[in-house]
């Protein structure tokens, strides 16, 4: 079937090329890039016989259960509100879900319902507390492990929620700073993670009767993510760790001593980002490491057989298991590529067959999207910087107008995959350059730490070096380079306008950070340890005031002499809206061409679409005005 489809596509493409080689690339409407699927939250019943999902009808979300054998569909609920925190199967016949109350962001009521839509009843309607699901698996056939702040609104304790009567029994009390919990394969709560904002500690107990003991403490620069308890070795946990290493590895840790016992996967050049444990097989299935793209390394032959069977059906795409039944026979798989936001599939490992459930965004046609290619270059001070280049369709990769898009931060990176912003710009004829400047995650501890307090300095140079590289490759037209970003990306963009306005023709910032002092101010002053972490990454206003002043564009409006585009949500309580307004005022007083837009948070999706259209249209116009004319 797929082969036939492909053949048809190929024919179509060939026919199109034959007709009109220089076919004008269709200008895709802005909102097409950002459409979201009208189906979400696919789940399988424990026995794998039923599929459930949320679907949108008349702007209302329904919970639907599909009988996979008979193909019959039952609408379980008619929810008035779009947002439900979650639902899940609690047996082969029953589901529970949260209805969100209107007007309050967190308050939720818990319901249980039969899979044919009957016998809906309220389990809990505590209006004050929030409840979050920890594990969507039943323990002793009646308990769900949830966390709730019903004891103290600032602290989440762990409870066993009886899905039969809604009773909640305390499973573990939170001393105040525990943020994450881990159960063993029997559902016993045995591990917890605490943080003081900077340092993360791992706590362990041998059984539920004992108190938690702190076994490891790490600085925020170090990663240690417990993955699962080992089935056959006592007091042993699998974890992704870069303790005493530069890159993440998958290791075994002795829970008594907190020491590393065994290494399952470690490479000096590869950074592990995920690891999958199979409860059924009681083994680690694989690790995922990320270079320019995520790759799997299998740790068991069973898993290799299973997942390679799946991957053969969806070549070239990245895939992720979203949910699976108890026997690990049916899987819900989410796929994507650089040119497609992807789709949901139902995979049957027994018959090795794949069934498409729905597209994430059906408006996106893969052949109209552009390829995202990995690139890399060496900076003057010897750092290797990786990045991605997306070239527009239908033109020679020579002398192109370029938009550089530095990513947000701190502690983020660009990954291979579908990016609506990038595709939008590429569709409008721009080559898009994304670079993982120093301080980006995923390239090791050293690379991450190299970006600390380098905003406006080394980070800026890394981005500039990327542009110089692109010009040297003759891909970029040196006269037509723009820089645009969100958050810290916006900071980099506007700083470029301040520092290096010969390289860039114009600069844009979308809800960007314009003032590092304001950024730090957003952290409440009583979170002293958390503040310390940000002081290390961004800068310490007591000691580094001069550097922070230098790296904050608000102070340097008078140094800008290229057109600037700024959007800001001035009503956002987390920022100091005055910064952007004052900055724009100053630019205007200096008679600089500045485009300023105020974004507004809108509840209605229709208004949101309208606002998005407006802001992207303004961006398009801004870029066109500054880059298209030579």
């Amino acid at each position: 079937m797929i082969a036939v489809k492909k053949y048809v596509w190929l024919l179509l493409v060939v026919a199109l090329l034959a007709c009109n080689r220089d076919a004008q690339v269709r200008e895709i409407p802005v909102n097409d890039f950002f459409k979201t699927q009208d189906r979400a939250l696919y789940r399988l019943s424990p026995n794998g016989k039923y599929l459930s999902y949320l679907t949108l009808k008349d702007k209302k979300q329904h919970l639907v259960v599909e009988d996979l054998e008979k193909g019959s569909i039952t609408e379980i609920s008619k929810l008035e509100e779009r947002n439900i925190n979650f639902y899940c199967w609690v047996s082969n016949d029953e589901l529970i879900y949260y209805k969100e109350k209107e007007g309050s962001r967190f308050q939720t009521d818990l319901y249980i319902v039969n899979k044919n839509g009957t016998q809906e009843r309220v389990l809990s309607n505590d209006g004050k507390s929030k409840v979050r699901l920890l594990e969507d698996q039943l323990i002793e056939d009646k308990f769900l492990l949830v966390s709730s702040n019903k004891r103290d609104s600032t602290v989440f304790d762990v409870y066993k929620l009886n899905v039969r009567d809604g009773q909640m029994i305390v499973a573990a009390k939170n001393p105040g700073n525990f943020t994450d919990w881990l159960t063993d394969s029997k559902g016993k709560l045995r591990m917890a993670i605490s943080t003081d904002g900077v340092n993360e500690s791992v706590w362990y107990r041998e059984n539920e009767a004992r108190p938690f003991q702190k076994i490891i403490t790490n600085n925020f620069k170090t990663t240690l993510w417990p993955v699962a308890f080992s089935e056959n070795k006592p007091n042993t946990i699998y974890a992704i760790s870069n303790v005493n290493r530069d890159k993440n590895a998958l290791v075994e840790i002795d829970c008594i001593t907190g020491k590393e016992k065994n290494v399952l996967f470690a490479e000096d050049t590869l950074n592990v980002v995920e690891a999958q444990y199979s409860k059924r097989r009681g083994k680690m299935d694989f690790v995922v490491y990320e270079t320019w793209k995520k790759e799997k390394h299998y740790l068991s032959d069973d898993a290799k057989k299973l997942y390679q069977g799946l991957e053969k059906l969806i070549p070239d795409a990245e895939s992720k298991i979203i949910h699976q039944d108890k026997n690990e026979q049916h899987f819900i798989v989410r796929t994507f590529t650089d040119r497609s936001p992807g789709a949901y599939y139902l995979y049957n490992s027994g018959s090795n067959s794949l069934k498409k459930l729905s597209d994430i965004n059906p408006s996106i046609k893969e052949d109209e999207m552009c390829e995202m290619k990995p690139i890399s270059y060496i900076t003057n001070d010897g750092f290797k910087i990786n990045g991605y280049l997306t070239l527009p369709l239908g033109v020679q990769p020579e002398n192109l107008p370029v938009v550089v898009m530095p990513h947000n931060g701190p502690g983020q990176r660009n990954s291979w995959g579908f990016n609506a912003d990038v595709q939008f710009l590429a569709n409008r004829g721009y080559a898009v350059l994304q670079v993982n400047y120093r301080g980006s995650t995923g390239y090791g501890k050293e690379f991450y730490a190299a970006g600390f307090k380098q905003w406006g300095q080394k980070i800026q140079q890394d981005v500039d070096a990327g542009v110089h590289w692109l010009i040297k490759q003759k891909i970029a037209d040196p006269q037509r380079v723009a820089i645009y970003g969100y958050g810290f990306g916006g900071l980099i963009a506007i700083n470029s306008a301040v520092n290096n306005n010969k390289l860039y023709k114009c600069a844009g910032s979308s809800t960007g950070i314009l003032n590092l002092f304001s950024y730090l101010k957003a952290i409440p002053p009583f979170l002293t340890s958390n503040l310390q972490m940000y002081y290390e990454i961004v800068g310490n206003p007591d000691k580094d005031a001069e550097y922070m002043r230098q790296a904050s564009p608000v102070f340097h409006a008078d140094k800008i002499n290229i057109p600037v585009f700024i959007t800001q949500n001035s009503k956002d309580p987390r920022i100091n809206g005055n910064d952007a307004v004052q900055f724009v005022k100053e630019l205007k007083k200096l008679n600089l061409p500045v485009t300023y837009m105020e974004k507004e948070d809108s509840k209605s999706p229709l208004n949101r679409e309208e606002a998005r259209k407006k802001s992207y249209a303004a961006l398009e116009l801004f870029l066109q005005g500054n880059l298209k004319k030579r």
Partner: protein
Amino acid sequence: MAMESVKESGYRKNFSLIVAFIGLISVLFVLSLFLAFNFSKKKIEGDFISAKTNVLEESIKPYNDFFSNKLPEISYYNGFLDSATAAKFVDTILLKYPFVKKVVFFDAEVRNMRYEDNGLNVGEFSVGMKNAYQFGTYIPEDSVKIFGPNAVQSNATLESFNELALKLYTFVNKLDTARTPTQEELFNIFSNIKHNRIDYFNIPRFEDLKIYKQMITKKLPSEPVYQQDMLSFELDPMKIKIKNNRPLLYQSVRIEPITYDPLETSSEYETGEITLGGPFSAYKLYFISAKSFIKKEIFGYFFPIAALILIFYGLLLLVAFLIYRNLNINHKMFKLQYDFLTNLTHEFKTPVSVIKIAGNNIKSAASISEREQKLYGKILDEEADKLNGLMNKLLAFTQIENKAIKLNEDRVDMVEFIESTIDVHQLKHPDFKLTYEVTDFTHFITDPVLLGSLFDNLAENAYKYSPPNRKQLHITARLIKDKVVLRFKDAGIGIPASEINNIFKKFYRIQNQYNQAGSVGLGLAFCKELVNFMKGEISVRSVVDKGTEFKIVLPFNQ
């Protein structure tokens, strides 16, 4: 006589018209000068009042820049200012804005704990200072810190802090947490504009303000301490640089207290004032100029206008003169044509009356003898020829003048041509002595008829304007540098130097005994037209009572 009087009256009419015109524009000229002067006076006096705002605006610009650009920069630091950064910040301000005399920096905090002697405590809400520093040009290093540990004792007032802190508290207490306050509101609350002083608190985020509000009523368990920076700028209005952009209008501009009003200002001076705004409202800009100084400026303004009016007046006069001159020339032309008509009539009259007499004689004679018949025949024939010649001449001239004829070129044998001309004239006037001389060439191509006319006219003139014993003409033809040069030299009465420029004009005749009748004043004008038509030139040299020489230069075509 009657004719003369008509001419005279026409002449007088024009003259009076022109005199009236000149009189009128002269009145206009004087009137506009007067108006222009009045206008200049009003304008400068008005400027003295209105340009004050301009001077104020220019002079206060650095202050406005300081107020709207530099003050908000304090908020950029979000309370993170410390003494070192503040010192740097203040240094740039002191350097750029000389009217800032001193800056006091209060490193302040908002918290739930009371401040005993260095802050404001209302309920659980406390705003207090940790440290205070003063910066200024003349402040010694050791007295910078005026409050806090290790501070020197100073008399410097710290009350500005309490004032603004109270303002902050009042605002927070009344804060409506459902509505984000506008930037303008916030700016008003967090700044305090006083006499020669501006205090400014950094504006916290709305989220922080909400927490401040909670802190009024209860102690927060997290024991938050929020950093606030307050800067108090002491300003010196006397240091404002006055930008007198009308130095010719305002002799002196000074900053004076608002109450300044000297009694001794005599009537010799013009004064004005305008209040400085904001923290300087107790001061004004005081403008003073001597009356004579303003007068200079009035004249400075008036002179260019007067010059323009004068130029316009001069142009009008020039136009009037040109019109007068043209009228005069036309008048003379009219007179010439009138003369010509008279001459022509006269010219025609003689042959016509001769023909009439001859006709009458033949009619009234009973019989005519053969001698009489021959006589009358000859008379009639001759007079008819005369009339014919006259008419031909007139016709040819009009034709040439209107370029209605074509050149009819032919090869001319010069010697033969001159000899035949001489023969004709000697036959007509046996007492006419004609000689000639041809050198360097024998033939050339030209229109023989036009050339014949030229020769005839010039020979006729030579004969006519010579006394009876000196009727002679010497014709020479030479080839000089591809040009045929013909000279006609007689020994006649000559032409006075004053008339030499007029002889080629139409209908012009020199008044003398030789041309009382039988001349229309067309001959030489006709010659000139002919020569022009043949693409040549004609010129004349003459000595009175000695003779005249005409020189004709024609192109030589082989």
